[in-house]
């Protein structure tokens, strides 16, 4: 090897690093940002998701939450002062929606993250090892797939007193991983037979290398899409449980808002209460619509076979 003066080496290295960073940004733009901008579904979905994410992160800082009861202002229609009107106690609904979005998204994110971790571990172990391990793990997976999840979630939520979003997310996650684990297993099984895996084995590469560097990068885009889908599922489930009033974690969680509107104060039975009942519902519908759009748009981008020609 020819020896280079230290300065030259430094130059080479720094120059290279700058270039790769710039290249990486350009590549990120071309492989993700531009396709998303060009794909209508992904674009609409990302706009909606961005709106909710900013609502959950910076929203509470801008919009203060004032839960003082003002009976004289109950069930006001939307106005400049109260964009979505007021609830049964005269409190601003918009403030509650903004603060509630943080609760909703946190639980959904945590639940999806737990579920993904379980699914990846079980899917990869089962698919890569095969044999008895595979049969055993898939047996368990099938049980989780066949048990009707929502009633069981309800029962657990009632019997275990859930006090914090982490354990609540865990209860949700237990019923969400099975489908993904099965499809990861199927993908790992087919990847395992591919020739580049054979090439890695012939090179004597370790199992760890094969799993984490050869197989995982190939299913990563799929997992990303599934993550968004799971968050959507977690939102539905968490709102459902909250709506039934079994886990009253926070008064501004959209599910709790709907529960209060429905059962406690009969907002649905008085015409003026329509905004209180509908606001959280619309927020959920919009958020889930955004998630569906984004996930299927991204799927079209990473899986060109779904796409008819550009």
């Amino acid at each position, binding site marked *: 090897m020819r020896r280079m003066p230290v300065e030259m080496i430094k130059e080479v290295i720094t120059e290279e690093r700058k270039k790769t960073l710039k290249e990486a940004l350009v590549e990120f733009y071309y492989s993700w940002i531009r*396709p998303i901008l060009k794909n209508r579904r992904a674009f609409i979905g990302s706009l909606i998701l961005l709106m909710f994410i900013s609502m959950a992160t910076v929203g509470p800082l801008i919009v203060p939450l004032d839960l003082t009861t003002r009976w004289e202002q109950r069930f006001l229609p939307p106005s400049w002062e109260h964009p979505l009107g007021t609830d049964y106690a005269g409190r601003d609904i918009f403030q509650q929606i903004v603060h509630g979005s943080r609760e909703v998204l946190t639980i959904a994110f945590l639940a999806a993250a737990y579920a993904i971790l379980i699914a990846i571990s079980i899917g990869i172990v089962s698919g890569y090892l095969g044999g008895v391990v595979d049969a055993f793990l898939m047996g368990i997976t099938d049980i989780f797939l066949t048990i009707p999840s929502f009633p069981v979630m309800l029962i657990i939520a009632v019997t275990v007193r859930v006090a914090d979003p982490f354990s609540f997310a865990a209860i949700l996650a237990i019923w969400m991983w099975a489908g993904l684990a099965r499809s990861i297993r199927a993908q790992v099984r087919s990847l395992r037979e591919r020739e580049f895996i054979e090439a890695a084995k012939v090179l004597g590469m370790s199992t760890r290398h094969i799993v984490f560097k050869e197989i995982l990068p190939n299913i990563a885009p799929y997992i990303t899409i599934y993550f968004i889908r799971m968050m959507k599922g977690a939102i539905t489930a968490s709102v459902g449980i909250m709506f039934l009033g079994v886990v009253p974690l926070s008064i501004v969680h959209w599910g709790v808002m709907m529960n209060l509107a429905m059962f406690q104060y009969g907002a649905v039975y008085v015409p003026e209460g329509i905004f209180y009942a509908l606001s959280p519902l619309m927020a959920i519908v919009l958020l889930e619509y955004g998630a569906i759009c984004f996930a299927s748009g991204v799927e079209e981008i990473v899986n060109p076979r779904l796409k*008819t*020609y*550009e």
Partner: protein
Amino acid sequence: MSEENPILRVRDLVVEYAVREGVIRANDHVSLDVAKGLVNALVGESGSGKTTLVDAVMGTLPPNGYIRKGEIYFKDKNILKLNPEERRKIRWEKIAMVFQAAQNSLNPVMRVAEHFIDTVLAHKSMSKDEILRKAEELLKLVRLDPEQVLNAFPHELSGGMKQRVIIALSLMLDPELLILDEPTSALDVMTQHYLIRTLKEVHEKKGITMLLVTHDLPVVAEIADRVAIMYCAKIVEVGDVRKIFYEPLHPYTHGLIHSIPSIIGDLSKMRPIPGEPPSLLNPPPGCRFHPRCPYATEKCKKMEPPLVEVEKGRLVACFRYA
């Protein structure tokens, strides 16, 4: 191919694809004559634009591909200017097409006889008896036993048999031109040999014009009368098969013929063409072959050589001859 009476004439055809990275021009001012009654071969490597040319003729371009310019005449009619009904009549009745790996296109749940009936009834009204009688005749022509084959399901036939069924099927509507896209790829030596022989017999007995689109030069040597060589979206040389193989003019043709391994001939005379075929996204300026050409001059790097007739029926796009 300046034969007296070409059955298909492509004039100045420009076909482009819109892709994520930009526009790919897969056929760049392509002109080609398909001589009537002969076996014509269009030779090119993958990405040379030969399949695009056929797709443009048959109207089977993918949705992101479009014809920017040019004319395609079948006899005297410009196909591109006809109304859809007339165009369909020419494209599927007068011109028949056997696609690449067509043996996989037979419907696995239909008997072979039903394929014949469906194909004909989609275009003409004929009685079933008539259709089956004709199918039997054509299956005999491609050396298959009609009784055995007509009642069989596709999976009961071997690859070579399916290939011959497809050829018989493509002849059902009495086409005047038969286009075959890579008919011999993925076939074993013996199967390939019998397929070529079948094609020869079909050509002799029916006098049908054929256009063979392929990258396989030995197969071309075996069956073709006229040959056109395509490189990077352009036609670079056209001529009779013997002229092309014994006296190639274009350096690419020359390189190609000498880079084909063969069981005969001097091993020391076989040598590869240096370099890689250019990308159609970003073709080199001037003559597209100049980066790989041993005779390239400054002129070749700047100007595109036109396709000119150097002797009767012999065209070449190279400054060494123009």
